């Protein structure tokens, strides 16, 4: 039985796994203690939960417990990593390298640092969405202190070659931070094999609660130091003050454990559903383009442009399915997706894009329904589309003198 609306926006957030909720509940109730209370059992029970979560997370990403710093989420982790390194290593240099397709939590953090005297290089990406390693190598100078490149992209799901990027950074004596919010728990991520020095992740993207995240901070070869960005009680080895969100952290730990256990199955299953969806859409609809490479991609991501159909009008027609569009009309800024623009796809294809995000609770039946519905609505909207009509008449749309407004 299909239940509506269907949720296929798992890059925005994921539903809380009931097993995670169950793990969290006692820490809202009888185990309310402050994890920093060292002299009574209330504190010890809370601390035990926090340390268990630290182990679970460390196990998921190949780190040690002491390298996990709890935060309020990946936005805070990204801010802490980038600003913390910029401030701590200011004597060494002031140059940071990132990419045009990063999340705003990285890009806007870098923009702020530019106002405070940092130099930032925003690398372009290739049309497949990947960073060019040679361009990265050329961008590194003796003033470079940090490279921040995301693991898996939140819009187009492309997976950067982080092991190679990390190797390059280490050869050059530069730290690598990766925003791995979309990748951790979904694909194998290992901070040692991938040469990562700092890694951001969030609980609510992996079936955990909102409002809690983590920053991995490498402790040896090299030992990474950060300047704390909040003053207070000196929690989390002085890197992040503030009483720990014990229920949230317990949930994050359990979410990490479940992801680790289910990953082999989920990767295969989500990729199968994703490919099925893609094949059905592309078999039935002409002029349909996948954004970003299929070769290196998160298994649960599909981002497709349906040419000559505007994204928001498509969302309106499939209103019993929750997805996102790169169309300007669906964003607060009235600009189409900067990620798709960075691929050089052209604004018109950015306006026509839909992001599908498959999750733990997605069923094959939901995918079949979605494919059918999208095909029906795209066909209907193309009947309404002057652009589709013109193309069918043989008009080259790039040669038309449009009155841009």
């Amino acid at each position: 039985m299909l239940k509506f609306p269907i949720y296929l926006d798992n890059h925005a957030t994921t539903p809380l796994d009931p097993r995670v909720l169950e793990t969290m509940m006692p820490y809202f109730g009888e185990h309310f203690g402050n994890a920093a209370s060292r002299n009574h059992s209330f504190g010890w029970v809370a601390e035990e939960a926090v340390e268990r979560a630290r182990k679970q997370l460390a196990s998921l990403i190949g780190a040690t417990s002491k390298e996990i710093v709890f935060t309020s989420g990946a936005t805070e982790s990204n801010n802490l990593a980038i600003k913390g390194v910029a401030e701590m290593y200011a004597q060494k240099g002031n140059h940071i390298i990132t990419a045009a397709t990063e999340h705003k939590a990285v890009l806007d953090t870098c923009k702020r640092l530019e106002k405070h005297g940092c130099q930032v290089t925003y690398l372009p990406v290739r049309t497949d969405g990947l960073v060019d390693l040679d361009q990265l190598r050329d961008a590194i100078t003796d003033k470079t202190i940090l490279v921040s490149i995301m693991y898996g992209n939140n819009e187009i799901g492309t997976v950067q070659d982080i092991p190679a990027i990390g190797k390059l950074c280490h050869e050059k004596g530069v730290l690598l931070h990766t925003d791995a919010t979309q990748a951790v728990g979904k694909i194998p991520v290992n901070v040692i094999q991938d040469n990562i020095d700092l890694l951001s992740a969030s609980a609510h993207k992996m079936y955990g609660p909102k409002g809690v995240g983590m920053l991995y901070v490498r402790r040896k070869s090299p030992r990474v130091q950060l300047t704390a960005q909040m003053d207070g009680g000196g929690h989390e080895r002085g890197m992040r003050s503030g009483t720990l969100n014990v229920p949230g952290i317990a949930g994050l730990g359990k979410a990490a454990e479940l992801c680790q256990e289910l990953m082999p199955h989920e990767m295969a299953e989500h990729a199968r559903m994703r490919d099925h969806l893609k094949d059905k859409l592309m078999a039935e609809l002409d002029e349909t383009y996948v954004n970003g490479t299929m070769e290196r991609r998160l298994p649960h991501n599909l981002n497709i442009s349906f040419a000559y159909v505007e994204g928001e009008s498509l969302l309106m027609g499939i209103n019993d399915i929750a997805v996102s569009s790169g169309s300007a009309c669906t964003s607060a800024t009235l600009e189409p997706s900067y990620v798709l623009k960075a691929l050089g796809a052209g604004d018109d294809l950015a306006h026509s894009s839909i992001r599908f995000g498959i999750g733990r609770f997605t069923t094959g039946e939901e995918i079949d329904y979605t494919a059918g519905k999208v095909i029906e609505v795209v066909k209907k909207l193309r009947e309404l589309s002057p652009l589709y009509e013109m193309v069918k008449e043989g008009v080259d749309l790039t040669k038309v003198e449009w009155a841009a407004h």
Partner: protein
Amino acid sequence: MAYSDKVLDHYNHPRNVGSLDKKDPSVGTGLVGAPECGDVMKLQIKVNPETGVIEDARFKTFGCGSAIASSSLATEMLKGRTVDEALQIKNTEIVNELSLPPVKIHCSVLAEDAIKAAITDYKAKTLDAAPASAQSA
């Protein structure tokens, strides 16, 4: 964003979708907007040359639901009006009728532009045709 019932109605049941023969001298065609801006409207009118009354209007729109609704409504407003009456149509009438939020006002502006472009095209055609018809008379 929540859509008004009237926008949803026009989106789900667009009025007067289609195309008229561009080459017909009694047909005026307006094509406004740009694909990279996310909306393009094609609006056509068919005018009775004797009375100057718009007898048919058709549209096709690439754009959000509000853009589709604005152009669908515009075709309804055009039918039965004279060309000169049609020139008086203001985007604010479309905004009020569809209860468009501020962020969607540009959709109504585009519809007004499309009406004006179609009329301009029609008038240009009749001017071109006038000497020819005078000769034949």
